[in-house]
């Protein structure tokens, strides 16, 4: 976690980190399009709820016009239909696991399993189903909460967390893991390992393809979350990825064993931003502004995300 003044790090209303993540994904897909992957012809399937933020971005900046938003909560059915921003978005109230088998094999897909909870066995099952089924070129993303399982107010109890993980996803864990592996600070890495193993297991039946990692994000607007993403790639897609400008991006991850890209958004005022931007991209290490207080770490964090931050409060609907 970043050090420095905590008033620079807590930002509950805007979910700034999530928005940075979305903008980075769109940026990545644009670069893949430049490399020849026809993202604009893909179908985007996500869990838009009543806000549809990712859908708006995908349609506006990539031109994707086959879209499906899936929501499990039956009581939001009307709100979802009311808030749907574009006519090319289909909505469906169902469990995502029911929707995946119905996805067409005639198009490539971007499927974002954007779960908002701690990992469950249904998550890995859905992930494996998607990977076993979707056609070559498809991109699968999965987001999970990596807070410890159980009520927030509970005492730290890694032994209980361990038994939760064993119960839900034990088949993706080694037999004799020490309780220490389940400490809070290791949960992001542990979840990455579990999801990576689920992906490998699903890929074992798809011998002429590989799953090319693209993203490994770690961030916390409230709960700490990780997002893993990659493409079901044949030779052509592999060449396109490795020939694209995506490889130059700081947020790109070609392997899930590498440390994740941590999205940290320091809280800065509008005036502070304009000032900082005049010094971006930052060449000098250790630079901090003289005109106001901002730590070295916060400046570094700002530099890593500034191009993806909304400049003003951006209305996305």
């Amino acid at each position, binding site marked *: 976690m970043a050090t420095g003044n905590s008033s620079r790090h807590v930002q509950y209303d805007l979910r700034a980190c999530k928005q940075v993540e979305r903008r980075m994904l769109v940026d990545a897909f644009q670069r893949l399009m430049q490399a020849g992957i026809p993202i604009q012809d893909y179908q985007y399937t996500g869990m838009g709820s009543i806000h549809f933020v990712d859908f708006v971005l995908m349609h506006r900046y990539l031109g994707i016009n086959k879209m499906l938003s899936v*929501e*499990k*909560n*039956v009581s939001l059915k009307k709100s979802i239909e009311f808030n749907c921003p574009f006519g090319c978005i289909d909505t*469906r*109230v*169902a*469990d995502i*696991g*029911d929707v*995946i*088998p*119905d996805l067409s094999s005639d198009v490539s897909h971007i499927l974002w399993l954007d779960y908002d909870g701690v990992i469950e*066995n249904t998550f*890995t*099952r859905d992930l*494996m*189903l998607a990977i*076993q*089924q979707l056609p070559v070129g498809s991109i699968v993303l999965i987001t999970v909460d990596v807070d410890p399982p159980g009520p927030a107010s509970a005492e730290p109890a890694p032994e209980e967390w361990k038994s939760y993980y064993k119960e*839900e*996803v*034990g*088949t*993706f864990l080694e037999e004799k893991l020490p309780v220490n592996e389940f400490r809070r600070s290791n949960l992001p890495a542990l979840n990455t390992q579990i999801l990576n193993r689920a992906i490998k*297991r*699903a890929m*074992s*039946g*798809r*011998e002429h393809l590989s799953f090319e990692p693209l993203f490994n994000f770690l961030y916390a607007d409230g709960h700490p979350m990780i997002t893993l993403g990659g493409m079901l790639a044949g030779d052509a897609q592999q060449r396109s990825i490795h020939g694209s400008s995506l490889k130059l991006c700081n947020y790109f991850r070609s392997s899930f064993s590498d440390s994740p890209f941590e999205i940290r958004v320091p809280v800065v005022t509008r005036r502070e931003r304009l000032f900082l931007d005049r010094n971006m991209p930052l060449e000098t290490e250790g630079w901090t502004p003289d005109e106001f207080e901002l730590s070295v770490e916060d400046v570094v964090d700002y530099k890593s995300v500034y191009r993806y931050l909304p400049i003003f409060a951006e209305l996305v609907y």
Partner: protein
Amino acid sequence: MPQEYAKAYPRKRFFLEMFTRDISLEECILDLIDNSIDGALRHLQIKTDDLLQDSPDVVDGESELPTIIVSFNANEFQIIDECGGITVEDAKEDTFNFGHAASKYDDATGTLGAYGIGLKRAIFKMGNHFRMESRTADEGFIVDVDLKEWAVNDDNEDDWRFPMELIGGAQADNPAGTKITITELSEDARSSLSDEDLEIGLRRKISRTYALFLDRYIKLEVNGKRVGAIDIPIGFSNEVEPCIEKFSDDDVDVTIIASLAARNEAGNWAEQGAGWYIACNGRLVVIANKTELTGWIGKGGIMPIFQPQYRGFVGVVFFQSENPLKLPWTTTKRSLNRDAAIYRRTKNRMEVAAAPVIRTLQKLYRKDTEETADEREAASKMEAGDIKVYIQRSPRKFNVAKPDVPEAETTTQINFTVQVAEIDRVTAHIGRRMSKARLGRFVFDYYLKSEGLANGNRE
């Protein structure tokens, strides 16, 4: 120095005594039936591609089906078929060799016979004397051998031949076909063939293994009694579209069909027939499987562990290839070779095909794990029919026309294990006895109420 040599000859004794040990008598009989069926398919000119698709046109009327008659007792084993016979050329060059020549693989009309040892192994295992009489339309032959005498000379290639007598081709009272008679049975064969259990087991094995051939391409009898096929209980209904997937993989054509099961006579789904069926060139190697062999593994996989609520599931996989060696079966052709790469790839797709059917079955059991009105209604609509109909249809996704069922769950189940002592303590504390299900519900409701979470309250 003149070149020295160590002998590395095959010995007749080895073939007569050793290589028959690893296979059962029942399997040997099935090998002979394989050969007859292969003959029938060749004779009817049915290629592997057309298996199960063409049968209505090929054979009109049941009485025209080629027959295979198996009969045995303590003294003799006999199999007589009217499946077209073996040509003299084949008999001279191939039939009695151990294994096929390379060129034979190239133009294999390849169905069930793969290795070229079934006939010999069966004969050697069962007895000391065999007689094979075979006629095609134009020609015929008889081979009649006493194996003890034959075993005596073992010094050169010529000693490995069987003398042949040429006879005429098929006639009215001797239709084109093959008759094999084995006498002077070995002690093991004699005791097995007089055991009633063997006959029962054999009939059962035949009706399962050859379910797709019996009464479709051949008629088969064992000791005077006709053997019928088991059903693959896949269901048909106007409201249900099965999942059908077709693809080719390394010279093998694969068809996957998954759907709800057909109802039995009582109008329900029967657990026994549920699960996956897998056939290689029409021969069933996996029947009604509900284990991890076909993906029922629960957590860590896509399909759940099989439970009675999934008894409405039937899936069928057909592997067809002109080269039987590419099929994912074991050398005995009795079971699946689960490690075959093509099976691993296909299993992937089987799980994907099954997923929506499983979901549908899960939704029918929302309230409890016993049969509900929904399930009885769904089952009652699924009629029995011939799997052949689905094989001919184009690929499609599973679909049930039922628009009024809300898709998303409004209820779910909780299962957990507790110590009996804990239950006793809680029951004592409450002060009255209740069923475990009600106890669980009571405890859950207690928390909801005491934390102000019961419906109508907000946290």
